[in-house]
């Protein structure tokens, strides 16, 4: 067999029921047909986790898969995917995490790590190259994210360069918005990987690796990368990210009137001027930070000194965190937004879903659907930062109203008797872009296999440059974006690399890393194959067109004010066009011909 250069062709499979850890070869076909990351994870889940599996049972798996360039010089090739059956959607989900955790797994000698079964007692996994141990974690159960990461590193001797991914109390408590958090601040955020890990009684995974990564053409690759560094340094979008992180988008999205405000009832926030990128940099940012092999450093470390909460110190906030915990809850003070993000980060909850869930409860409270009796005395109105923080803590601990909210915003809204106030698709809330102001995002949210996730096809940029309100003529662009994102996620790139590294660059880096030859057409076929395999898994789970839905608010309630005023969405029209473009039938199922053409 050919040597695939940077790729290790090995996966570590750990069964928590039996306590066995084995190393398996990964067939070369996985790399040529799925690359790795989201694509390879999808293939393994499809083959190993039956569609009738209860996501929180021991039959579910957590399939961590690096991209083929993990650990190499390819800029931003640090994203590792975890693929699992989601407790929030009951379908397939891949969640991606940046930072250094994925590369560390690679340096330990593995492209992938599969966790299966369920431990009787809380445990954590300790991987040092080929030495793998399952260790007692009873003393960490109940501990928050920083306590767990620091405690484990201390127990293992105090090496700060050990990379730990863990769950917090939210994951232990099977909260469907629980994330897995790596290195304290980097998350496998959505939708519910932390709950799956909690259901397995696995508290953490700690890794230290010292092995080589050997790109097929290391010297040529280094020269190629050196040219890319120059392009990054001169790229305006990369520079905006460098200075302001993803928050650079606030001004544009708010001015166009589609920034999630008060549970998506409005598209502009009156206090947005104080929340722009430059304001964030001036008021709260204290450090710039980067993931492995990334020359942009869009990561921001922020801090506020609060009279109520003391020193609040977080990484971020990201634009989506800011949008959902801030304006979508009617809040515009950094103090509360940072504290809310810190609560989510400490307990291990996804900030987007957390903000969307609380904003739904806030609207229910304002409309009298729930009362102070239900909230345990909390005045849960839009704009009440203290209330937001109090409710988030209850969600993490599953106390009082928090126990209902922890089941996800769809279930919670149904229990409150107001299902129409839950902004979601497949049980998962959208990010901070109101699709009424950029209608391709309606198709993105509705057809995303893992619930309303913006990164399945972020079409905002292309739409703003054209007619963002058009409902026809966009299917080809949306399909192309979905394919490109499937490629980025399967290759293990950060999506921010796309500003500089287009498909041609990605293909070249793939070839230099692995030594494999591939045409641009083959490359696109991989992306399309991944999309269709995900789709088919969900079809096998019983999902059809009716699940590609959006809340009534987006479809029927016209945006009240601002530059997106009067807009609603004709989703049926857009879905018909999109399904046809994808080669799916009227019910959203991939046709036999389409699957056959992709070798599925």
């Amino acid at each position, binding site marked *: 067999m050919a040597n695939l250069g940077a790729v290790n062709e090995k996966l570590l499979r750990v069964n928590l029921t039996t306590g066995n850890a084995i190393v398996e070869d990964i067939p070369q076909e996985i790399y040529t047909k799925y690359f790795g990351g989201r694509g390879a994870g999808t293939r393994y889940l499809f083959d190993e986790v039956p569609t009738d599996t209860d996501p929180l049972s021991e039959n579910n798996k957590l399939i961590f898969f690096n991209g083929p360039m993990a650990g190499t*010089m390819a800029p931003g090739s640090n994203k590792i995917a975890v693929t699992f059956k989601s407790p929030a959607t009951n379908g397939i989900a891949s969640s991606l995490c940046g930072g*250094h955790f994925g590369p560390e797994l690679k340096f330990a000698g593995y492209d992938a790590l599969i966790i299966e079964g369920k431990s009787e007692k809380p445990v954590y996994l300790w991987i040092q190259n080929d030495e793998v141990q399952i260790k007692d974690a009873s003393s960490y159960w109940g501990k928050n994210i920083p306590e767990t990461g620091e405690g484990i590193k201390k127990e293992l001797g105090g090496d700060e*360069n050990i990379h730990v991914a863990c769950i917090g109390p939210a994951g232990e408590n099977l909260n469907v918005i629980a994330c897995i958090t790596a290195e*304290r601040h980097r998350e496998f955020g959505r939708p519910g990987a932390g709950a799956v890990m909690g259901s397995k009684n696995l508290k953490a995974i700690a890794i230290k*690796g010292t092995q080589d990564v050997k790109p097929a053409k*290391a010297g040529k690759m280094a020269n190629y990368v050196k040219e890319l560094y120059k392009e*990054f340094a001169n790229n305006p979008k990369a520079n905006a990210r460098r200075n302001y992180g993803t928050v650079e988008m606030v001004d544009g999205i708010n001015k166009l009137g589609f920034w999630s405000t008060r549970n998506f009832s409005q598209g502009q926030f009156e206090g947005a001027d104080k929340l722009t990128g430059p304001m964030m940099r001036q008021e709260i940012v204290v450090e710039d930070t980067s993931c492995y092999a990334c020359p942009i450093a869009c990561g921001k470390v922020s*801090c506020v000194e609060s009279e109520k909460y003391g020193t609040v110190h977080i990484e971020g906030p990201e634009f989506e965190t800011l949008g959902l915990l801030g304006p979508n809850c009617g809040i515009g003070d950094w103090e509360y937004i940072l504290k809310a993000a810190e609560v989510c980060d400490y307990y291990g909850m996804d900030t987007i879903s957390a903000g969307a869930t609380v904003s739904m409860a806030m609207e229910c409270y304002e409309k009298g659907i729930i009362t102070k009796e239900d909230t345990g005395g909390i005045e849960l109105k839009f704009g009440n930062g203290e209330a937001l923080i109090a409710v988030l803590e209850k969600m993490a601990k599953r106390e009082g109203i928090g126990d209902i909210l922890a089941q996800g915003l769809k279930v919670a809204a149904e229990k409150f008797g107001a299902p129409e106030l839950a902004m979601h698709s497949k049980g998962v809330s959208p990010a901070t872009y109101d699709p009424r102001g950029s209608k391709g995002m309606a198709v993105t949210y509705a057809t995303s296999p893992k619930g309303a996730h913006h990164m399945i096809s972020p079409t905002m940029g292309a739409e703003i440059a054209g007619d963002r309100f058009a409902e026809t003529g966009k299917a080809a662009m949306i399909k192309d974006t979905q394919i490109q994102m499937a490629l980025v996620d399967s290759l293990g790139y950060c999506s921010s690399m796309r500003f500089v590294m287009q498909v041609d660059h990605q293909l070249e880096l793939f070839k230099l890393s692995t030594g494999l030859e591939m045409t641009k057409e083959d490359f696109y076929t991989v992306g399309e194959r991944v999309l269709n395999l995900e789709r088919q898994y969900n079809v096998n789970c019983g999902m059809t067109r009716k699940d590609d839905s959006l809340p009534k608010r987006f479809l029927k309630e016209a945006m009240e004010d601002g530059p997106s005023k009067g807009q609603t969405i004709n989703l049926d029209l857009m879905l018909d066009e999109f399904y046809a473009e994808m080669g799916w039938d009227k019910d959203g199922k991939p046709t036999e011909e389409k699957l056959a053409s992709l070798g599925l």
Partner: protein
Amino acid sequence: MSRKVLTVEKSKCIGCRICEQWCSLTHHGVINPAKARVKVTRIEESGVDVPVICTQCSKAACIAACPEGALSKNSKTGAIKVDKEKCTACRKCVTACPNAAISVHPEDEYVLICDLCNGKPKCVENCPEKALQYLPIETSERIYRSKVVRDTAKGGKRCG
């Protein structure tokens, strides 16, 4: 001409570890942080990234600590030379180094110390933030002083 030394301005480091990649590639032809002679450690609590480098001390503690006579200085660059044959990986130099810049090769039995890439350090060349620089020793402190002066004028950094 005076000799040059490697300098680090930790407040500029973003923790991308591109320096580690170029270092291990240049010396070993592979990417492996464990084989890099420059190492970045992130303190997760504060989010601060700290690159650890050899600073080419003139009275090198590593040379003094070596019982085998395996370490010496390159007379031109001032970099430490490791005699792989003599080195026993006893690690006395590792603990003698005030910077903690020395590590043991993960597969072979000898220590890894920065050799300044024969006067053209690749880590410096590729650092996207210019956190690492290669400067004449007599002016090597000026960037650090400028930063302290700037911070003092601003009244120091927020949140400690």
